Every structure is written in C-alpha cells, then in structure tokens.
C-alpha cells in the first residue's frame, strides 16, 4: 500500500462536468494571505502573499484520456473516432474504452428482468422489476463526452412540487409522507444558470423561448441573451412547426396549446454580438463567505471554444450529426474543455502554462472514505490499476483530515462510494455503526431518470432527417400545468435522426426491403422514400423521487478490482405510467394533424415495457441519472445542504445530478452545473477557514 504524503487542499473524485467545474473555479482563485480572503487570479498582484489552492483529482478512466496537451488529446480523441466508425452498434458508450477495471453501465447490457433473479449481465446488478435504462461513461471528461448537449433551465414550479401541486412521497421504510420541495428556488439559481451557460457555451434565442409558466419571460430570463446565437432548426422541424403551430392537444381533462420552441444547447454557433465581451466567474467576498458573480470587466470578445487540441476546430457546429456518441470536432461542449482551463493558466507572458497546483491521477478508482473522531473525512481509499489490459492494482490511501473532499463521480458512483464507507463511533458509551453522509438514510435512494417514450412514423413528404444536431426543437407545452398533481410533466424534443434510435434505421430498413425481395432501382426507391420521411417524437417524462428506487451495494457483487458494483432496484408508479398514456394521446393527435403514418410499435419483448389501462407502452432511458444524494432542508430529509455539502461531515461535498431533489422536465446537466458552481462559494469559505488555521 502506498501513502501519498504531499498534502492537498482539495481532493476531487471524477473529472466529469461537476468535478471539472469545481477544479476550474478553484484554480481561478488564490488566497490573499494579507487580506485573509480568496481572490480571483486576475485580481492578484504579483506578490509573495498569495497562496495557491492545491488540488488533486482522481479519475477512474485511462491516463490517455486526461492528457490534454494538443498532440496527445488529438491522438486519443482520434482513437475514439476510429473505434466509433468500426462499432456495429453505435450506442453512447461505443467510442470509448470499455474498461474491466472501471466498468460503465451500457445500454447494450439491459435486458428484461425476471424477479427475483437480477440481471447481472453488465456492470449494474439490476433487481428491477423494471430495468434502469440509462448509461454513463467512465472516461476522462465523463459522460458529457457522449451527451447530446440540450440545455434547458428548470421551470420555477419544478422546485416546489409539494407547495404547488401537493405532491408528497413516501419516507424510507415508513408510512410517513415527505415533501419534495427543493431547498433553493429558480430565482436563487438564476445567476448560476447564467454562469453555467457561459461556461458550457450555450447557443439559443431567449426571445423565442416560450413555456407554460405564470411568470413572464422577462421575469424568467431578465434582460439576457445566451452567449451564442440560436443553432438553426432543422428543415424537418420547420415542416412540423408549420403543421402544428397555433393548434392544441386535448388531454383527458385539459386542452393544451402547442408551443414549438428552438432548444438552447451546448454547441457552438455564432457568438451573439449582444452578449459582447467574455466573462469571468469571480468570487466576491461578503461579510462572511463568498458570492460568485459573472464579471463583465474583461476586454476580449466572447469566442466560441472549439476542440481541446485546437480551439479553431469546431468553432461552429458543422452538422456531423453524431453528437451522441461523439462530436468529431468538439463543437459540442464536453467537460474536457473546462478541465483544460483548470490545467492550463495564462502566465505573465500571456502564454498557456501547465498549472502545477492541479494534479490529476488517472486509472485511480476511489472506493471508500474513512472518518476520524471529529467525523471529518480522514482518508480516501483508491485502487490504481496499472494498465489498460491488466487488473493488477496498487492500493493507495491519501490523508484528508486537513483537506476538503469532493465526490463528483456521478449519481451511481457517488452513493456507491458512500455506502461502501462504514465507520464506528462511540455514542453514549455504545459502539454505533454508521455510513458516511447517510444520517438521513437517503444515500442511494430516489434514483430517477426521464422515461423516454418514442413515437415514430412517416411524414407525408420528404423532410430529410438524419441531418444536423440530434435535436433542435422541442414542444414545451407539457412541461408544467395543473395536471402535475395527477401525472408527470414532460418535454417533447423533435428528433433529427430518423428512426435510428427505436428501430435501428437505416440498417433495419435495408434488411426489411431485402427480405421482401427488393433489389436494384426498386430497392433504391423504397429506401429513398422511407428514409427521407422518417420522423421521431420524444416524450421525456418526469419521474418522481421514490425511496425504493435505489442504488445499494452487496458483497456478492464486485467488479474486477474487488469494488462493489451498483445494485439497482427500480420501478415506475402510476403517476408516470399515466403520463405516458397522456403523452401517447398527444402524439396520436399530432401525428393525425401532420398526416404522419404511424409506425410506432411497443412489444412485450421490449426491455422497458408495461401495460396500463390495457394498452402497452415501452420506453427508453434518457441518460439522466439523478437523485441519489438529494439536497434538502435538514440532515433528516437529505444527504446534502443546498451547497452540496454533506450534513454529517465538515469536509465533504457530494456534487452532480444526484443532488437534484426532483427531476423536472429539463435535461439535468445545466441545472447540476448551476448548483455545482454555487457550491464553490461554500468550498471557498471552508478553504479560507482552513488557510487561516
């Protein structure tokens, strides 16, 4: 076992967007010893009275994925591209290394579960009864390497489902009901949304956003524009918008007008001249603590940031249409861009220089935390595997009693590490067994995802799908409304990539027509007709927190390094099933109006399928792994406070989509970025205290 002695101020586990944002913001700040305050690097005078914040990041993925100098990062990324070209099933994880030492959930491993036997085929051990249907990837930069990049903010009512719609959920193992309001609201998060949109580089048109909310758009966005102009909507979108604008959908109890909205997204378009100069996210010292602001004093214009190996590549989205699983030019945001800004800082000569205060250790799988008598996290336990091929590893322990520990390993891994961290304390002369950060018994619970019901068909004229980013328009009408006391809200993105998701087109169309005996011109014509008319509608349905939908661990199930695998119990309730029924009603009406020939098929053999009111529905995962270390009001109702700080330990933060109290109808990453950025205010305050002692 090796012990790392050189002390670090901060340990971050995971280089995904959550971990990278924190690394970037912390490395942008230094401690002014004279003033006893944290200040932004840009305001630091050249002097000896500055103390740097030293940071160590652990990343489970391969070393190569974290070498971010131009030559290495281009080589590694090209290797991902080559793998992508060669993979038969181009699923989200397909371009990236599939590591036995740090396995990832993969959609190809999902299969129906026959209780009581779990599905153990992949990395997850799934007890169901419904399989959890989403994946993530353990690679430098994390899952944003294969995210789509859609970045809507949450809506004000998403933060107060109990207050607004009277929804309460079960408490763990009791009949008591728990409210599910967030400890923060939309207005509080708004400035941090702007910071997240700056850091991710969001393209969109504020003036075209339309949501079914009671607040005006001036209240919702304020006097604001996104950093970049709107990503053009697809030709297909236009045809669908032409057919649906101004019409309504009739749900069981309500008539709902259709709002067709261009989606804000984290991919590069043209910088918006009204956004003007670039910004700095700066901490301003308050009486006690800090507040981050989006400082406008920079002189340089805002620029789109392209590939990590060459910022002039990918300055605009080029329409590769492969955002999931990989953008060849990195016009789409991924967390390596933020990580690179943490790793390289401008020196006095305005050259980029490797930041010596940030160290990243790759191939390092964190699996346990230890706690000292003050309930501080005293050690982080790591298994570092030595090569891509072998499962040999070195055991490493780092002392963290005087450091801040930040778990940013995603909503499966964070709870898994916590549940694997048991400790004993003496309370009233009695030995008591505890689990790190788990006073509330909420660690690992409330696992959520959007259930993606897909409907597909043929448009009456060619709409030429399979072009452009995955989705450029969404129907926002069902994102909020009184119906939420009865069933889930949902968002409906229009999908630009034909039937590739539900039906494996175009391969399936080729085999279908071949099996009908078509060849030559007849085959060509049939395929041209079919493939240029394919449309796909999405219904991303909000799932409520449910304490029994959870990640646990079990000694029986460990990975190749002997580390527990996530054991998942998961199911839907009538609240979500009913929403799918209503969404299908909406789909049918829209298809009819557009004269779309419906090809939707849900089969009993689908992985995620159920019958509700005698009708079968099937759905997919959205990749939105959420809720397993929720934030809340008290140590009893939640794992962290609103700054993502554990209630139970003075030096532990847990960040990522796991903090989300509820899911809402937005893709989660912009929101998790906003509150992760906000958590830095609390981390800086803790560091100030630490540095003064």
């Amino acid at each position, binding site marked *: 076992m090796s012990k790392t002695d050189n002390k670090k101020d901060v340990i971050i586990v995971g280089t995904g967007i959550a971990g990278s944002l924190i690394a970037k913001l912390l490395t942008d700040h230094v401690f002014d010893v004279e003033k006893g305050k944290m200040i932004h690097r840009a305001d630091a005078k050249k002097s000896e009275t500055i103390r740097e914040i030293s940071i160590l990041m652990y990343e489970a993925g391969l070393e190569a994925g974290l070498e971010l100098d131009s030559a290495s990062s281009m080589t590694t990324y090209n290797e991902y591209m080559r793998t992508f070209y060669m993979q038969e099933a181009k699923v989200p994880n397909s371009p990236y290394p599939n590591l036995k030492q740090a396995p990832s959930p993969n959609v190809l491993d999902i299969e129906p579960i026959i209780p009581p036997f779990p599905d153990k085929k992949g990395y997850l051990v799934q007890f169901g009864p419904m399989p959890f249907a989403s994946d993530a990837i353990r690679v430098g930069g994390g899952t944003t390497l294969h995210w789509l990049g859609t970045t809507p903010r949450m809506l004000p009512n998403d933060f107060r489902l109990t207050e607004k719609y009277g929804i309460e959920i079960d408490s763990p193992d009791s009949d008591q009901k728990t409210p599910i309001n967030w400890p923060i609201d939309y207005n509080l998060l708004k400035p941090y949304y702007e910071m997240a949109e700056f850091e991710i580089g969001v393209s969109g048109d504020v003036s075209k956003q339309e949501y079914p909310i009671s607040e005006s758009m001036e209240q919702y966005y304020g006097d604001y524009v996104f950093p970049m102009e709107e990503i053009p909507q697809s030709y297909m979108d236009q045809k669908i918008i032409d057919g649906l604008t101004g019409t309504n959908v009739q749900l069981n109890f309500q008539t709902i007008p259709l709002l067709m909205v261009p989606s804000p997204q984290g991919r590069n378009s043209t910088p918006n001249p009204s956004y003007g100069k670039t910004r700095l996210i700066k901490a301003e010292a308050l009486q006690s603590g800090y507040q981050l602001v989006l400082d406008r004093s920079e002189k340089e214009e805002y620029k789109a940031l392209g590939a990590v190996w060459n910022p002039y590549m990918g300055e605009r989205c080029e329409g590769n*249409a492969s955002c999931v699983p990989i953008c060849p030019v990195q016009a789409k945001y991924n967390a390596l861009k933020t990580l690179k800004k943490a790793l390289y800082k401008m020196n006095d000569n305005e050259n980029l220089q490797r930041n010596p205060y940030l160290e990243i250790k790759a191939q390092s799988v964190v699996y346990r935390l230890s706690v000292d008598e003050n309930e501080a996290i005293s050690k982080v336990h790591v298994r570092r595997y030595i090569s891509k091929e072998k499962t040999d590893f070195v055991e490493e322990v780092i002392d963290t009693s005087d450091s801040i520990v930040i778990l940013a390993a995603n909503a499966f891994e964070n709870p898994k590490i916590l549940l694997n961290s048991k400790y004993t304390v003496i309370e009233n002369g009695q030995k008591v067994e505890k689990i790190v950060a788990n006073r509330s018994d909420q660690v690992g619970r409330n696992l959520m995802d959007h259930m993606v019901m897909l409907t597909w068909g043929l448009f009456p004229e060619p709409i030429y799908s399979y*072009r452009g980013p995955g989705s450029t328009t969404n129907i926002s009408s069902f994102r909020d409304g009184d119906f939420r006391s009865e069933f889930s809200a949902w968002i409906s993105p229009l999908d630009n990539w034909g039937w590739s998701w539900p039906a494996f087109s175009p391969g399936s169309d080729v085999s279908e027509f071949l099996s009908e005996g078509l060849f030559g011109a007849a085959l*060509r014509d049939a*395929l041209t007709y079919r493939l*240029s008319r394919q449309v796909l509608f999405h219904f991303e349905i909000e799932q409520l927190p449910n304490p029994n939908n959870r990640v646990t661990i079990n000694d029986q199930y460990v990975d190749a390094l002997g580390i527990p695998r996530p054991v998942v119990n998961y199911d839907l309730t009538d609240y979500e099933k009913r929403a799918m029924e209503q969404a299908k009603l909406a789909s049918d009406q829209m298809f009819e109006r557009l004269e779309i020939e419906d090809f939707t098929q849900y089969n009993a053999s689908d992985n995620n399928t159920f019958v509700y009111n005698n009708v079968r529905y099937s759905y997919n995962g959205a990749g939105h792994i959420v809720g397993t270390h929720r934030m809340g009001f008290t140590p009893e109702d939640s794992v962290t406070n609103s700054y993502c700080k554990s209630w139970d330990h003075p030096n532990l933060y847990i960040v990522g989509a796991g903090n989300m109290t509820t899911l809402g109808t937005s893709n989660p990453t912009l929101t998790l970025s906003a509150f992760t950025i906000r958590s830095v205010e609390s981390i800086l305050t803790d560091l100030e205290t630490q540095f003064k002692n």
Partner: protein
Amino acid sequence: MIIINKILNVDDYYFDVFMSISESLTGFSVNELQATGLAETYYTYILGHLDAATFVEFLTVSKNVFETSFTEDQLRNTIASEIMADPGMNDMAGKVVTMWYLGTWEGTYINDLSYKEGLVWNLMHAHPPGAKQPGFKSWSIKPVTTKS
C-alpha cells in the same frame, strides 16, 4: 480450381462480373460503386471471408444471368428468378447489397472507411453520422442534392 485462381485476380473477368451484379442489385452504377474507393477491398474481403466455392457459384450464376439477358427487363426477371428466388443466392445477394449500402459484412464493418462510404446515406440525401459533415446550417434547408 482454374476458376478460383482466376477470381483471386481483381483484374480478371470475374471482378467485372462482381461489379456488374453489384450494379444490378444495388441500383447504383458501376461508376458510383467505384467512387466509394472500396470495390477491390470488398471483392478481396469476400474472398477472404467466404468459402471460395460459394463465391464462385454466386459469380457463375451471375455470369449466366448476364449472358442470357438481352434487355433490362429480362435482366431484372432473371435476377429475380435465378438469384432472389434461390435461398442460397438470395443470401449472397443480400450480403453484397448490405456491404455496399452499409459497409458491413455479417454485421462487421470492413474497415473504418466502409462505414463512411455506405451508399444508404446518399439515398436519404444525408451523410454518415460523424463523417462528411456538410457544414453549419446545412440541415436547415433542403439537401442540395435534391431536385425541386
């Protein structure tokens, strides 16, 4: 045996038979097929991955189809009866078409170029995702390859 030696040679007559039958089966002209840059790669790939006798039989049947058809209609009918209606030949024909359309043979890409050169993307006036990107905003108008 003599024939097997012959088909191994891409300069040979059998290679032309392969290209001609590919043209008739895919509906893409020999020139369009050649433009993928993969014709010889595909031909030799099949040779390497198939029991030679099966390929020889397929090429021989194809050769006969061409020798006995004098009009387009005849050719189409003969392919339908001699190839598409015969289980073994039909299977080969399907594999050959799939190779040209998708770049795969029995589910595997032949190389990283074969994915990009799949002809199916041309049919839908698109491009293989992740390659041959058409540029910013191109997706918001009708494809330039369509007539209107």
